[in-house]
């Protein structure tokens, strides 16, 4: 059990109709607790890889094992549970714009069916950890991009998922905010959450000594 990887991707292929194949042979192993950068040019397939891990996209061939189960075979409630064990963060935040920050953070807990008091406690914990107490009561559409991303991270992490997938979370943000986002994700990683961070940001890649994966010519290569 100890040595079993959290993620095992083998021989994954994907070809969207009428386009160049985006994956010909993708292989990857990720252990629990790792922090990984995923990079590659636009259109290389970073988002598609994340969508496959979430079970939103099926590979044409190969297998994707997450936490001991084959993602392709999951359905119904199992698929929902699988998605709940992964926190997704997007470049465009994907928050409910007209709700308060707190409402947004509470959604995964509502989905889990957590009772009110536990919900409040978990929201308080994540709020303190990410230092976003001031934003909590505000409507999301009144927040800046960076602030929205912090809320999105809080929502992705509030129910303590095993894995956080961050799809270019800093693409729309300035360097200072990008650093803060990275630090927050590092903090979550230091508490045991596995993080895969997709980014084009050379500065980030250079500044931190982490494992780096590069998607290039339809395959995945270890760079660092």
């Amino acid at each position, binding site marked *: 059990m100890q040595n079993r990887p959290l993620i095992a991707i083998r021989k994954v292929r994907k070809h969207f109709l009428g386009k160049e194949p985006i994956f010909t042979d993708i292989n990857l192993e990720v252990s629990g607790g790792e922090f990984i950068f995923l990079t590659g040019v636009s259109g290389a397939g970073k988002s598609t890889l994340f969508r496959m891990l979430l079970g*939103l996209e099926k590979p044409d061939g190969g297998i994707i094992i997450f936490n001991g189960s084959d993602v392709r075979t999951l359905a119904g409630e199992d698929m929902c549970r*699988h998605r709940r064990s992964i926190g*997704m963060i997007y470049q465009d935040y994907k*928050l409910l714009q007209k709700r308060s920050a707190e409402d947004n953070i509470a*959604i*995964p807990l509502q*989905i889990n069916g957590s009772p009110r008091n536990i919900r409040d406690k978990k929201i308080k914990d994540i709020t303190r950890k990410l230092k976003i107490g001031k934003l909590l009561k505000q409507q999301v559409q009144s927040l800046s991009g960076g602030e929205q991303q912090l809320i999105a991270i809080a929502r992705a992490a509030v129910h303590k998922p095993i894995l956080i997938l961050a799809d270019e979370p800093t693409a729309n943000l300035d360097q200072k905010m990008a650093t803060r986002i990275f630090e927050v994700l590092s903090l979550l990683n230091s508490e045991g959450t596995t993080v895969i961070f997709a980014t084009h940001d050379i500065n980030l890649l250079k500044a931190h000594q982490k494992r780096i994966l590069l998607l290039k010519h339809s395959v995945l290569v270890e760079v660092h």
Partner: protein
Amino acid sequence: MISSAFGQTLDNLRENYSTILSGIVMTCFSLVILGTFILVYQNLIHLTQLAFRKSHYSLFLVDQISSHQKSAIAAYVKKIPDVGGIQEVSSDEAKKQLIESFVEARELLQQLDFPTFPNILEFVLDRSGPLTIEEARHLKSLDGVHDLITGRETRDQINTFFNIANFVGLFLITLLMICMVLIIYNTIHIAIRMRIKEIEILKILGASPGFIRLPYILEGTLIASISCLLSLGIIFFLYSFVVAGITFNNATYPIRGVVRFFTILEMGTFFVTIMLLGAFSSYLAANRIINNLDV
């Protein structure tokens, strides 16, 4: 889960009140049409039924009937529910009536000898159905009764007419109902479609279809319920106008007490049906969107 769904429904209502409002207006409008149609139809059927309610019967008595037998028969007829207009016609009277009704042939008829003109007991039944089989059988078996003649043929024709009218009416109501379902379904489908991003997010976060659906089902039910109450109010308003019109018009004055609104039970049935319809169509609409979502 239910309480959070309620909270979410309230939030949805607050955020999307304009879509929901137009949904209510649309649904309410079509419900007014449907409800008015049902009400008018119901009243027309009721009025015609009242007009054709009475059925006539003639009890032919034997020639040598004793007054004792006659009064026993009359007493039995009197006890039949909804009976009225009991009238005895003697053979002489019957002859006189017959002669009077054929004025041109009066002289000829007078010369003829009518050997047997039976005594007749006529009565009228004022109820929605004819004599029951047991009542008729019992009447025929009474001492001194020769035969029972009914106006059944006209009655049957009227019943046939009612059956056809009923069928046509129910057919039209069904048609309107189907339109209603489509309108409610479409309204709710549009309202949900506008929030497809929201549904997408919930799906990515691992919400089950049931969790995603629930607030929308509550919303659909609410839209249908509010529209239903509103439309009943509007129909009552229209009804009051019509009743006022009937009362102030000499020609229609006599039916003023007969025209009626829905009973509480009918309104309850209408409300529950529409509510379930709202729930069901929002269920379908939400399902369709969730299943077709390609996230």
